[in-house]
């Protein structure tokens, strides 16, 4: 265990593909997973679009990185906060998002949801509790 354990928050507020922020943010998360910090991701505003199910970039020639979200559990990145109000404003529900899960080693490898649906107020408390916020 490293000397310092900090609460790391990756704050995602952008849609995927129109800009590279979502994808290069994920690259930081993947590298960061090796550092044994207390990691959370938040998806608010257009950031919730990153998690939409069924992304297919074959006709646009962009790189499809959406499967990477499904791999986050294997990297022990298991806290993905999704803001309820952002979904609603966009006419979306949890059913529109990719199912993202992780296996809990301490609970007989039970499969658990990585996505935590929270209200803006609840998420404000989570953000308030962080040590450091990476914004993308």
């Amino acid at each position, binding site marked *: 265990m490293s000397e310092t354990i900090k609460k790391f928050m990756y704050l995602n507020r952008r849609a995927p*593909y*129109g*800009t*590279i922020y979502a994808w290069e943010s994920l690259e930081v998360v993947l590298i960061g997973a090796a550092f044994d910090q207390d990691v959370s991701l938040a998806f608010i505003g257009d950031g919730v679009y990153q998690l939409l199910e069924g992304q297919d970039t074959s006709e*646009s*020639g*962009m*790189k499809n990185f959406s499967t990477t979200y499904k791999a986050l559990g294997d990297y022990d990145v298991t806290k993905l906060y999704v803001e309820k109000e952002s979904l609603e404003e966009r006419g979306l529900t949890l059913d529109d998002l990719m199912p993202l899960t992780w296996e809990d080693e301490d609970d007989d490898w039970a499969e658990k949801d990585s996505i935590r649906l929270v209200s803006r107020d609840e998420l404000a408390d989570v953000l308030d509790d962080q040590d450091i916020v990476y914004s993308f």
Partner: protein
Amino acid sequence: MKFAIQVNEGPYQHQATDSAYQFAKAALDAGHEIMRVFFYHDGVNNGTNLTTPPQDDRNIVNRWSELGKAHDLDLVVCVAAAQRRGIVDEGEMQRNGKDAQNIADGFRISGLGQLIEAGIQSERLVVFGD
């Protein structure tokens, strides 16, 4: 029909250059002419030959070079914008005392007048940006 295309953003950060490329390709496939692609603002960064994108991703710069070669496209990088951002050809290298050049195949550096001329001579100008 005679098109001109303006690209305002560099490779990878924004989809603008991807969209411009797909539009250009579709226009050429449909038998239209593209009299010029003008790279302005950060768009000049599409003209560097120093990128090495991951193997599983598209190569944006090479794609432009190849489309340009296949269709004899006039790919123009704005000189004023290029000087601010560090895109350099042989002439610019000598003029500004630089150690290297980095202009990609098929691109040329020229003035803003080329953008105005494109507006005058084309039937449609299509702008792609942030």
